[in-house]
């Protein structure tokens, strides 16, 4: 482990070759006079091109963990490194930059902009990255084509099926070539046939070299990953490699 480089500028700094490194993470909420520990001393690492599922019942702290991994929130205590960046101490704007560059979100309810076309939805992260229009258009189109929606670019979300919407969301998540693809119950709002399609897409993306973290409460979905972390009462209960 090499940690001399505290500011986390390059991929070589930070702990080892791990893409994500969580060390003794605590997340505590103050509920009146009582302290509620959503995460207690959580530590784990994720390497490049891993396919990881985080599973746990509701209230186990897996949503809190997902928000931390996704840089939507900061831990109360502990260190969190992502791709060589120490994000646990970052300001809101720095976190926004990390979310833009390092993380691709896929949500249960898709979270697409209803009034925007598929293409514009996919372009969104590139707009905030400050990319020029022509380049942005090409890159978004390539990303949509990669999820086989190249012929649906001008459709709005309400003109697409659930599976197609989720694929737009995946295209959006991947358009910036993020370090990790972070999916929160990605099949939760889909029927079983479409769910299987989406899971196949994740497997393909994994085999293309993407790092995927899947948060779910369904064991059958988690089983498709190569590694499963089970979380309960804010602690890692099990961390097993299944493939």
């Amino acid at each position, binding site marked *: 482990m090499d940690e001399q480089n505290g500011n986390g500028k390059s991929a070589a700094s930070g702990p080892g070759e791990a893409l994500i490194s969580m060390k003794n993470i605590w997340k505590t909420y103050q509920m009146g006079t009582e302290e509620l520990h959503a995460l207690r001393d959580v530590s784990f690492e994720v390497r490049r091109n891993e396919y990881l599922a985080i599973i746990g019942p509701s209230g186990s702290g897996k949503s809190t963990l997902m928000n931390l991994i996704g840089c*939507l929130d900061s831990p109360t205590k502990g260190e969190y490194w992502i791709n060589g960046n120490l994000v646990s101490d970052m300001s809101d704007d720095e976190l*926004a930059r990390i979310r833009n560059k390092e993380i691709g979100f896929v949500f249960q309810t898709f*979270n697409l902009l209803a*009034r*925007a076309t598929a293409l514009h939805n996919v372009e969104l992260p590139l707009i905030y990255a*400050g990319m020029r*229009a022509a380049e942005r258009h090409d890159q978004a189109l390539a990303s949509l084509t990669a999820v086989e929606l190249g012929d649906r670019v001008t459709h709005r979300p309400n003109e697409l099926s659930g599976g197609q919407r989720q694929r737009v969301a995946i295209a959006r998540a991947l358009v910036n070539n993020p370090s990790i693809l972070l999916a929160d119950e990605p099949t939760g709002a889909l029927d079983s046939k479409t769910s299987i399609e989406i899971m196949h897409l994740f497997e393909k993306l994994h085999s293309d070299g993407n790092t995927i973290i899947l948060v779910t409460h369904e064991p059958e979905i988690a089983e498709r990953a190569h590694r499963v972390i089970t979380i309960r009462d804010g602690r890692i209960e099990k961390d097993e490699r299944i493939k």
Partner: protein
Amino acid sequence: MKIATNQFYENLKMAFDTLRSNKLRSFLTIIGVVVGVITVMLISSIISGIGLAVEKQVKAFGTRSIFIYKQEIGIRFGRPSREERMRPDLTLDDALALRELSEVETSVPFLNVSSGFFGNRTIVSAGGKQTQNIQLSGTLPEIEKTETQVLIEGRWFTQSESDAKSDVCLIGDTVKDTFFPYKSAIGETIEINGREFRIIGQLQKKEQLVGGGGGNNDESNTIFLPFHAALRIKPNADDIFVLAIAKPGRLNEARDQIEDLLRVRREVKFGQKNNFSTATADSIIDQFKSITAGVALAMVVISSIGLMIGGIGVMNIMLVSVTERTREIGIRKAVGAKRSDILLQFLIEAGTLTGFGGLVGLGIGWILTLLISIVFPSYVPWWAPVGGFFASVGIGLIFGIWPAWKAARLDPIESLRYE
């Protein structure tokens, strides 16, 4: 910088999308701004139009002209005071005395004989037509030297015609149109209260602000007669207006001399106010400007109120919009929007909304000023649309700050969960 303009352009595009998808709401929101801008356009154009016309009209009297009358000259509100009405009349001798002053080139009286001996209106007729509302003015041959009337046909009357009280006259453009629309009036006779006058000259139409077309205020609806010939129409005529012409570049000196002389002649005691008034083109224009400045101030207040109400409407609708779009804000933050991005997005949206309102107001205001300009002199000064547009954008930016700041501060996790 390129990235910044790029983002700005994106935000502008998004703002227009939002406006388009909420047409009715957007329209209702901007009504206040629209009305405010229309007010600015209309009032400023009318004020500027009147100002320009007044200037033109007064300048047409000549930059060396000094008007002298027993009552106050200029724009007045209400009836003259009792003191003013009781003032003694100016006389022919007053007008002649002014000619002796070193700074005065010439001066002429204008004797008003528009109404007859018993106060009845003077009747003018020719070629079977008859009218009562022509202004009749008795004057001296030196009127030619004042260069305040332009002769387009014929000649002025001579000193000998004036001395002989000859029955000759010059007619204004409107008088010609009334009696001799299709032929030259020179040499024709016109009957004034039963006396026949020979027409020897015709005058050019006068630039006029309001009241053209033959009414009492139409300056071209005038007949000029020799002073003493006019006195024969109305022997007791005493309503005299004097026009003096200063030597070139000596306007103020001439005015001082005139006032000093008239104070002596009219026996005004030391320390008392003049019992007559003098005016120059500039003094009338200045007087007009001080009045329009007051109107302009009232305009600023009225339109500010309109814009304020519009601004509060914008703030209200933006707050609703922020709440409605909480989830959108969460999504944007999740994919990398910074606080400043969200702030900018909503500010630009508010500015676009009111700026659009401003443009609508300018459009409607422009059409209205065009309509007004048909009946009334009006022109839109360049600063009115520019100021109106920037004020409306500014209103959006100012009243959009709070909603935009609220949006920027939303917590991404909470926002993504928002239903």
